């Protein structure tokens, strides 16, 4: 199990979900080989945290999230939710445990034959809540997700964002301790996505509800997660606080994901012009990531004065990750390899992340 960092805001509180050396292997069928969907994973989700798991499709994140509520059972290892070993429960105990684990879905999965109210009431009916007590639980939930006026509407009469709000209210009906989100914003437009993210953050703050979400979009991680785990090939290849992952990604896949939102990825037009070797007259292209306290320092003008060189800014972006400014700049500079080494040493010394990308003519 990874060591909990007491300084880390996302890690306060006891572990509510933990994966202990968990693997899920789907046996081979017909002509397809066996699939290690989840491969020896250790992961801890602290109570009250919002944790994101990002990965491309096929990375195993869907299986990972389904191991938490027992929709899948691990082949090896142990998944614990609020002290319960999910794999050891019989069907009845597992159904009971699932009532304290809410789940929302990419395609909402609402019953078309039930109104918003009745959809939210369904988990309560299933849990055997007395009929008279149901409106007293459902009405406040409708208010909370801002759909009090859509109470008697059928899903076909609601927009995607409204359907997901019903999905969220339904997931909260049985007062769960954990909310699992399976690509809940992936079918929504950017504006609606932002609203759903805001709603989830508010629910997390108001109810101290732990949220674990999976996504393939780094922009969602950036806005929602306090901690993030990056998955590839069934394994967690990198995990940490969202700011750590954004400022110091180590794995190539993580760098690509981070680059999607921070502008760290080299634009195609520049990629096409990049040359590998130095020749007189060619300019060096460097990428600088400004993080933390250095993000607002006038780095380039200082270097210009100190070394008498001119920078030509080719690409750049400033983002806010976990409320910290976070900038990326790609610039070219007329410098021979010797001067170039000095510049990079200087930049690195001031705690910026610098990378030499190549040369342009």
């Amino acid at each position, binding site marked *: 199990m990874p060591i909990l960092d007491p300084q880390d805001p996302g890690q306060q509180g006891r572990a509510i979900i933990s994966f202990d050396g968990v693997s899920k292997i789907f046996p081979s069928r017909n002509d397809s080989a066996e699939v290690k969907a989840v491969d020896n994973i250790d992961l801890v989700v602290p109570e009250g945290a919002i944790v994101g798991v990002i990965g491309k499709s096929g990375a195993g994140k869907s299986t990972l999230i389904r191991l938490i509520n027992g929709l899948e059972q691990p082949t090896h290892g142990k998944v614990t939710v609020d002290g319960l070993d999910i794999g050891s429960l019989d069907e009845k105990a597992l159904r009971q445990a699932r009532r304290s684990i809410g*789940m929302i879905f990419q395609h909402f*999965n609402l019953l078309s034959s039930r109104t918003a109210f009745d959809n939210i009431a369904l988990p309560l009916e299933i849990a055997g809540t007395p009929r008279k007590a149901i409106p007293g639980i459902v009405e406040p939930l409708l208010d909370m997700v801002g759909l009090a006026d859509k109470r008697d509407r059928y899903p076909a009469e609601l927009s995607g964002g409204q359907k997901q709000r019903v999905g969220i209210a339904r997931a909260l009906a049985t007062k769960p301790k954990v909310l699992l989100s399976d690509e809940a914003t992936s079918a929504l437009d950017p504006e609606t996505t932002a609203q759903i993210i805001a709603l989830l953050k508010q629910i997390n703050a108001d109810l101290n509800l732990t949220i674990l979400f999976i996504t393939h979009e780094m922009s969602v991680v950036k806005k929602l997660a306090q901690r993030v785990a990056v998955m590839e090939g069934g394994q967690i290849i990198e995990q940490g606080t969202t700011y750590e992952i954004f400022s110091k990604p180590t794995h190539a896949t993580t760098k690509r994901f981070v680059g999607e939102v921070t502008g760290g990825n080299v634009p195609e037009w520049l990629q096409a012009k990049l040359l590998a070797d130095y020749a007189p007259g060619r300019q060096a292209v460097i990428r600088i990531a400004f993080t933390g306290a250095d993000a607002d320092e006038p780095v380039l003008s200082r270097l210009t004065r100190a070394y008498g060189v001119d920078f030509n800014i080719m690409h750049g972006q400033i983002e806010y990750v976990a409320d910290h400014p976070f900038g990326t700049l790609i610039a070219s500079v007329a410098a021979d390899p010797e001067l170039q080494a000095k510049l990079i040493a200087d930049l690195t010394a001031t705690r910026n992340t610098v990378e030499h990308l190549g040369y342009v003519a």
Partner: protein
Amino acid sequence: MSPELINMILWSTLDTLTMVALAGIFGTLAGLPLGIFLATSRAGELFPAPNVNRIVGLVVNATRSTPFIILVVAIVPLTRLIAGTSIGTSAAVVPLTIAATPFIARVIEGAIREVDQGLVEAARAFGASPLQIVWKVLLPEAMPAVTLALTLATVSLIGYSAMVGAVGGGGLGDLGIRYGYQRFMPEVMATVVAVLICLVQGVQSLGDFISRRLDKRTRHS
């Protein structure tokens, strides 16, 4: 047309309606659970019993592929056992029910299989038992399709009920054969056909109407 003939047509229509209604009700009572079972018992489904599923499937297919007129004759001993006789309207209900049951089972299986598997997953995720999933999710969601399936079954039953007339089953088919065909009274035959057309049309319209009312998947204005 003489008043007696008109009277006979009315009585025959009533016979046909009785046969279709009884066979429809019994066929649904047997076919609905069978259809639910067929739709939920393959490997990895709610009530996994793949071998029983295969056997039930075979029996259903065998019954469905037996031509109805042969089925009627083949089960005469069973008909006698249940109805006490092998001729007449009440006797005809037995083969009609036996023909309708596998048909209804298959169309209901189809209707249930069309329900989005995501809904089943969601229901499992919030702790529903397999039975609760059937009652609270699969059946309500399949209802529009089930209604259309039962409409189709009823229309088929009207056709079959005309066929039992050939073996003394009573009803409109019987009237058509005895008077329209054997006594060569074309006006009786034409009336019988017209009444059958009206029945089928009426049943289909009613089924479509109910199914539309149940279907909430499209916006209502």
